[in-house]
């Protein structure tokens, strides 16, 4: 990160900051840039607490976390621990879903050395590129993000100069200049998918935020740090053809005891509902995320 040109830019930034806006004396005068500044200060603080992608930890850390918490949650964690052995936390910076997906997917490919999956994914990435082009995005605004993702995808397959180990994958996913680029790649893909199938997503988006599909993508998908919802997950899963399972750790309970709800996001599920054929969509999700209201982490099966 200490490249000379960045140093120069940072210096420039400093000089610019010194003649910045006067201090805030009136709440009415707070502009969005002030808010953004404060937000980035908070984010910087948060960064010290947890890397983008944390270490693999035994599930018991959750038990410790909720020691004095709600009994329902404690029960659910117990249920979870029957099926899952480890959890990997991600930073709660609004990008956690995408970050989880990035690590979990790449780790999966790395472990299985699944070359056919890499080829399949490359095909999907090309489809996404075309989607964005058809939507009127200028190539240079998304090219870098695509290229960087494809690099990561290649690097998890062993046997080339660029190959990386699992530890290196962790390091890369913690490196902002890679991690954020891949997150942004997913944001582009998600946005493109939602816009491409806007008639399908419109009712969900209306229910969620009462705005148009385009506005939704502009305010809730493309900007970094905007949290993901089931719309994002559905769109990303569909666009890349990767099934995702989400375990919900919340305080909901039902009469038949405390079970942990889960939802599978299966690519093409929407098509199936509409009766059209989508082939082998009945894949079992290999990416499992733990959802706690407002946040996603990665779960590892036993």
């Amino acid at each position, binding site marked *: 990160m200490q490249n000379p040109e960045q140093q120069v*830019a940072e210096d420039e930034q400093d000089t610019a900051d010194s003649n910045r806006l006067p201090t805030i004396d009136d709440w009415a005068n707070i502009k969005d840039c002030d808010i953004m500044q404060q937000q980035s200060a908070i984010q910087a603080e948060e960064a010290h607490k947890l890397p983008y992608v944390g270490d693999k930890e035994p599930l018991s850390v959750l038990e410790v976390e909720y020691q004095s918490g709600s009994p329902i949650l404690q029960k659910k964690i117990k249920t979870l621990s029957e099926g899952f052995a480890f959890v990997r936390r991600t930073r709660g910076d609004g990008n956690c879903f995408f970050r989880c997906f990035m690590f979990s997917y790449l780790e999966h490919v790395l472990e299985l050395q699944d070359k056919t999956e890499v080829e399949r994914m490359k095909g999907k990435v090309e489809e996404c590129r075309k989607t964005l082009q058809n939507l009127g995005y200028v190539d240079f*605004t998304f090219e870098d993000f695509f290229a960087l993702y494809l690099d990561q995808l290649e690097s998890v397959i062993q046997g080339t100069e660029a190959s990386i180990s699992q530890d290196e994958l962790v390091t890369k996913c913690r490196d902002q200049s890679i991690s954020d680029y891949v997150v942004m790649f997913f944001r582009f893909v998600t946005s493109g998918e939602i816009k491409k199938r806007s008639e399908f997503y419109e009712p969900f988006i209306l229910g969620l935020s009462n705005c148009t599909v385009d506005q939704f993508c502009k305010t809730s998908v493309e900007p970094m740090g905007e949290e993901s919802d089931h719309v994002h997950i559905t769109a990303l899963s569909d666009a890349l053809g990767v099934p995702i399972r989400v375990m919900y750790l919340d305080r909901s309970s039902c009469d038949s005891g405390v079970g942990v709800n889960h939802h599978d996001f299966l690519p093409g599920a929407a098509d199936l509902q509409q009766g059209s054929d989508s082939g082998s969509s009945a894949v079992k999700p290999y990416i499992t995320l733990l959802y706690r209201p407002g946040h996603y982490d990665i779960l590892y099966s036993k």
Partner: protein
Amino acid sequence: MAEEKYNRKNPAVKRILQELKEMQSNPSDDFMSLPLEENIFEWQFAIRGPRDTEFGGGIYHGRIQLPAEYPFKPPAFMLLTPNGRFETQTKICLSISNHHPEHWQPSWSVRTALVALIAFMPTNPDGALGSLDYKKEERRTLAVKSREAAPKFGNAERQKLIDEIHQYMLSKAPPIPDSPQQTSDENSSTREDQQLEGESPNADVAPVIERQPNPEANDRVVHDLREVHLNANAGPVRVSFRAGVSVSRRVPNAEDANQPSWRNNNTRAPKPADDRLFTWAAIGLTIAIVVLLLKKFLKSSGHDTVSMGGF
């Protein structure tokens, strides 16, 4: 050249070089922007004041600072030319809009931001920090003055770049329609010429906007433009200003009233083919209107102008 000095693997540098390349291969008449040779994160730019506003014909210089985290963090814009809308040497917050806080998005670019800045100029500052609310006459005076010389700023290398950009903009931006020769005689052929002259650059606006990376950003820009036009036509300020510079009052006013409608059609049209269609329809319509107005104007034999003195 700058490119050799920088680590092309650095994603920010890579992106910036790509934007530069794109900017150079699709030059615009409305703005020009280039990085300093010594620092690719520092750009100089000039924009042309939006036409049909008090900034029309003005050439406004400024600098852009791209953060090391670009394109994740937004570029900072500062104007150097006194303009009466933004304070000079103060960061302009382009991400703001009155209704929704617009977050910067990596799919935007220096180009998008410059287009937004142009659209921003005629909007009401609403007391925002870094904004100025000069009277239209003062802004117009500054616009005229802005063409005379580029601002003096920075070291010799930067100054050279500023001057270069100024020359380019001068060659692209038509002079301010403030000079007496335009209003002196009003026979039908010159009127039509002026109309077409005023129109062809306008017709260029659509393709320029078309090239914008983010379709949403366009919406906003177009939306702002629309507002701008409404404002320009709404108040008596505009009319009285017009009365000050032009001999024949009725014709330009009537034109103004017609302009927004076809221009909106023009910019709103989503496809290039439609654009062309609308543009030609608009040109035809405007010519017809001008001819009709001239007929009427000639009929009322020009003595009628006194009756407009009320403004």
